[in-house]
């Protein structure tokens, strides 16, 4: 079975729910681990990487949590499938570029995903919908405790878990959440928030991690420091900050509706207008307009429309997903046309946004 058949369909993925999922799209905790006696993947020659893989892969596959898993060497995955995995946030761009000597193991629920020989021997991540950092930490902690019985981890009494990059040293943990923050962007408060989050030693990144743009008003917030602080403290600290960002986003949305309703309705109405009527549209524009549509759903401007419709479109309008639906290789412009066809089709049943009189919009439905 190929990986795309194995994974949940975009429809199923978009229907997953979790606490605060109106703003927090997903939570993730990643641990970096290495074994003794094998050079780190970036420095090891191919033969050594393969030797490492032969130790690591059976250990990961043997996990009880991976009893129904998909496991494949990266050189056996077609480029298009790797790109789809990136678009689903299951692997990093760096891992997608790997070939022989690297592998991927992901469980059926897509709640656990292990990259073997990415930058470190093991990059294991637990994923949860909505804000569930503690649950994600507990899950990955368990997996790690199982693996340490089988693998001889590179661990130093003072420096903790040894990692290829000194920035991950110690706990090797990266706790992160993907946030949808259109309110803060429209209210022009986002830079202020980013700066204050930075001051707390936390990083804010774009949609696909390090060095990427915040497309569709989606931001990733994560810890930067990994040494000198225990895992549970890092999780707790990030959780607190996220709850505050959620509050700021909610406040920004309420403020916009009260003080600048026309501006908000204009943005959302135009977004709908373009998405539902365009005949050629780029992936970037689509994401930014879908973000506004999602905000419209949250604000009750699209009665009867579920957020999962928008979230599904977020996934399937991305380049690799679009390409996968068509047998022949598509040029970027052909994709833009097919994307617009798909959007017009999927939005046919969605009526144009209907703003209610101000004051009746404070509470979003179902919250």
């Amino acid at each position, binding site marked *: 079975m190929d990986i795309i058949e194995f994974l949940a369909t975009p429809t199923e993925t978009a229907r997953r729910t979790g606490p605060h999922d109106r703003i927090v799209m997903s939570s993730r905790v990643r641990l970096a681990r290495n074994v003794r006696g094998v050079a780190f993947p970036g420095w090891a020659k191919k033969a050594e990487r393969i030797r490492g893989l032969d130790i690591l892969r059976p250990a990961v596959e043997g996990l009880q949590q991976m009893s129904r898993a998909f496991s494949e060497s990266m050189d056996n995955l077609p480029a298009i499938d790797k790109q789809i995995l990136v678009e689903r946030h299951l692997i990093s761009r760096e891992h997608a570029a790997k070939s022989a000597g690297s592998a991927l193991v992901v469980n059926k629920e897509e709640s656990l995903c292990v990259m073997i020989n990415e930058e470190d021997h093991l990059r294991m991540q637990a994923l949860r919908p909505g804000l569930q950092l503690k649950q994600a930490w507990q899950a990955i902690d368990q997996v790690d*405790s199982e693996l340490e019985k089988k693998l001889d981890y590179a661990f130093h009494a003072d420096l903790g878990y040894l990692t290829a990059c000194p920035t991950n040293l110690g706990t090797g943990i990266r706790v992160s959440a993907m946030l949808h923050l259109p309110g803060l962007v429209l209210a022009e408060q986002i830079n202020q928030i980013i700066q204050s989050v930075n001051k707390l030693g936390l990083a804010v990144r774009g949609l696909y991690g390090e060095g990427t743009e915040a497309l569709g008003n989606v931001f990733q917030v994560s810890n930067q420091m990994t040494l*000198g602080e225990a895992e549970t403290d890092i999780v707790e600290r990030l959780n607190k900050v996220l709850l505050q960002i959620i509050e700021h986003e909610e406040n920004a949305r309420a403020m916009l509706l009260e003080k600048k309703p026309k501006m908000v309705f204009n943005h959302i109405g135009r977004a709908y207008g373009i998405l539902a009527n365009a005949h050629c549209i780029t992936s970037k524009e689509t994401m930014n307009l879908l973000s506004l549509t999602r905000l419209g759903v949250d604000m009750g401007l699209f009665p009867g429309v579920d957020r999962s419709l928008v979230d599904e479109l977020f996934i399937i309008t991305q380049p690799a997903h679009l390409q996968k639906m068509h047998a022949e290789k598509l040029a970027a412009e052909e994709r833009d046309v097919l994307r617009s066809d798909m959007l017009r089709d999927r939005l046919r049943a969605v009526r144009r946004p209907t703003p209610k009189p101000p004051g009746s919009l404070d509470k979003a439905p179902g919250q």
Partner: protein
Amino acid sequence: MLCMVCKQNDAKLHFTQIVGDEMRKVDLCEDCAKSKGVSDPTAFSMADLLLGLGAAKEMEETAGSEDLKCPQCGFTQADFKKSGRMGCAECYATFAEPLESLLKSMHKGTRHTGKVPAALVKSRDLADRLKALQKKLEKAVSAENFEDAAALRDEIKVIKEKLSQTTA
């Protein structure tokens, strides 16, 4: 003021970030800022940037002209400068000294306070107990309490055996 990356053009962009109670500054020219992705503040993380240029520089300064090389994997300081990554776990012993100040600027502390593999926790406990027993033994011997000393010696022997098993 010159750009910190290329050290050729005038720095036009100046960033400040506060981490803990330390202030860090980065000065960049427009070209380097662009190539590092700094022009878009939402996609920009100071740590990533600092790692690229600050890390290697800091290591260079602390290590002087001495060129260290990892005996295990052959990784050198020049390699670190290029990649910002280590070669293998053993490198951390080789580059311990130059790394220290880098770690200080990068992290909350320089000592790991989080999770420890269970097997190591066990051997740590054993090592602690061994130390305590050896002290007791010394006392017993100096007090000429040979009966206790003999019992302690047996206990120590068992723990030493266990220790050699867990660390093997």
